[in-house]
């Protein structure tokens, strides 16, 4: 009976490992029963609602090795439990990867950014309100989507790549990492593996229960930003209903190398249009070598939304996405 409004934290065990090995061992032992807790800003609502019921939380924020921003031979490495405020204010990130600083600076609200981490922002769960209400939809392991129907309230949902579930990637930082060609560092007891940001996010066609490629027992420990895209031309814009505490209706992150007005290379990704940050390779190919102009922007916008399949209340996302891509490209 979902007939009561829960908001009291239920019984749940808490582990606060202070070293990596311990955390990885706990993650391994507890598996899906162990909830990885970073800033917790996406966690506690689930638990208070009793809509997710892990047996234990493994707090990751006491592990210093997974915190902070470090320069490396090939760019910058950001610990996964670095707070969004730190990223938004960090001089290196602001100077070289301003697009990420910008995105981190518009997540939710100041207090959420003060506690919320990059890893948490990247791993946060879908924001479809049906799912969040605790309904047994596909993503919750059920056999139905309540949002994708002739009457479903799907204004905030996907216009691309839906597969039964039509929720979108809610993260503001995720598109910037895809655009920056970041590398995700994933640790488990079996060792460390890396993958591109683009591969890290997976859609419901591949796994309807998870938004990332993380397996049980794995922890995202760091994000590496390549030197190749440092100090590029950046464009980030998030359009949301409200300017605080809101998820993007559509966002765009563009990373470009521009010389004399000509786009030599570019990577562009949009948020909130698909379950994963939507990389716009067709647009990138079309604008490479072209002079930035209003016309080029308009063409890029049109190309960006080709194949969009809006639902009943999110048709606006098509022109909005086109406009945002156009703004990013035209300069």
């Amino acid at each position: 009976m979902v007939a009561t409004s829960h908001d009291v934290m239920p019984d749940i065990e808490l582990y606060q490992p202070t070293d990596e090995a311990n955390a990885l061992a706990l993650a391994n032992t507890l598996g899906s029963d162990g909830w990885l807790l970073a800033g917790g800003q996406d966690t506690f609502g689930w638990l208070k609602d009793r809509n997710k019921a892990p047996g234990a939380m493994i707090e990751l924020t006491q592990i210093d090795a997974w915190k902070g921003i470090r320069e490396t031979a090939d760019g910058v490495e950001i610990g996964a439990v670095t707070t969004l405020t730190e990223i938004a204010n960090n001089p290196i990130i602001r100077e070289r990867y301003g697009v990420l600083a910008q995105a981190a600076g518009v997540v939710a609200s100041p207090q959420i950014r003060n506690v919320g981490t990059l890893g948490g922002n990247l791993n946060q769960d879908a924001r479809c309100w049906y799912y969040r209400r605790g309904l047994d939809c596909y993503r919750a392991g059920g056999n139905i989507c309540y949002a994708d129907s002739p009457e479903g309230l799907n204004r905030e949902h996907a216009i691309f790549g839906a597969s039964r579930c039509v929720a979108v990637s809610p993260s503001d930082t995720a598109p910037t990492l895809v655009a920056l060609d970041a590398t995700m560092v994933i640790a488990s007891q079996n060792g460390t593996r890396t993958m591109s940001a683009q591969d890290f996010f997976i859609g419901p066609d591949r796994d309807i229960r998870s938004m990332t490629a993380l397996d049980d027992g794995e922890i995202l420990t760091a994000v590496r930003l390549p030197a190749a895209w440092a100090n590029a031309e950046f464009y980030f814009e998030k359009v949301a209903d409200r300017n605080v505490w809101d998820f993007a209706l559509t966002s765009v992150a563009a990373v470009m190398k521009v010389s004399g007005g000509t786009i030599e290379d570019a990577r562009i990704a949009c948020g909130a249009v698909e379950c994963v940050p939507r990389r716009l390779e067709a647009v990138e190919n079309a604008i490479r070598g072209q002079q930035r102009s209003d016309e080029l922007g308009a063409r890029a916008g049109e190309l960006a939304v080709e194949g969009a399949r809006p639902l009943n209340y999110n048709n606006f996302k098509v022109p909005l996405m086109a406009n945002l891509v156009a703004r990013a490209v035209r300069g």
Partner: protein
Amino acid sequence: MGEIVRYKRDVWGEEVILGVSWDLLWVVAVAVLVLLAAHAIVMAALAKKDLDRPTAEGRRVVRHESIDRTFHWLMAVSIFVLIFTGTAPILGLRIAWLNIHWISGLLLTFLIVAHIIRSMFWQDLKSMLLTPKDFSEPFDSTSKPGKYYFEQKGMHWAATVVVLAVIVTGVLMFMQIDTPFWNRTNSMPEDQLGLVFLLHGLSTLALVALASTHIYFALRPEKIFYTRSMLAGWMSEDEMAANHDPAKWTPKEAE
């Protein structure tokens, strides 16, 4: 091992069927493995070492026309793809399975419909019909079957039932997702939807069991010539004579 049926809450909090418990996949896998292994052991123990197998040499008769073989193998492929794409994600493999699944499902549906029509008008439907007499066949060593012996007919009809169940439920499920042909509706009540999922799951389990059994027998040494006949179309007269009654089945001579 858990329960057979999984339940969930419907949108207003009432308990409804969600589908089959996929733990049963393991039950089926183990059961099939045990049974087939047992069969293999028994057969091995009973086997007379010096038994003369019918020879594949000599004159050949047609067992399966090429069109029938094509149908068989297309169905086999689509069923294999369906089973794989349907169960692999349950087993934790992250693949984009749904489109492949429904495309194979559509192919299978088309093949089945065509097969049904063909079997009724262009094929010897009677050769596959199970008659009361067939049930005595396994116990009567003197009687030889026509084109299909009892177990083959049984397997066929079991597969028919299961495949029809999986197709009917599959089509109902197909109507609940977005496709290039339509946008999904939420027209089916959640309890009915759960029932459909349950039947689809149960028939899938049955299909897995049947397919495994079918492959096992197809690979058994004493039956492998049937598999060859499904590939090449022919069987030798010797094989024919050893296993079938020419009075009941008069095949054409092969080229």
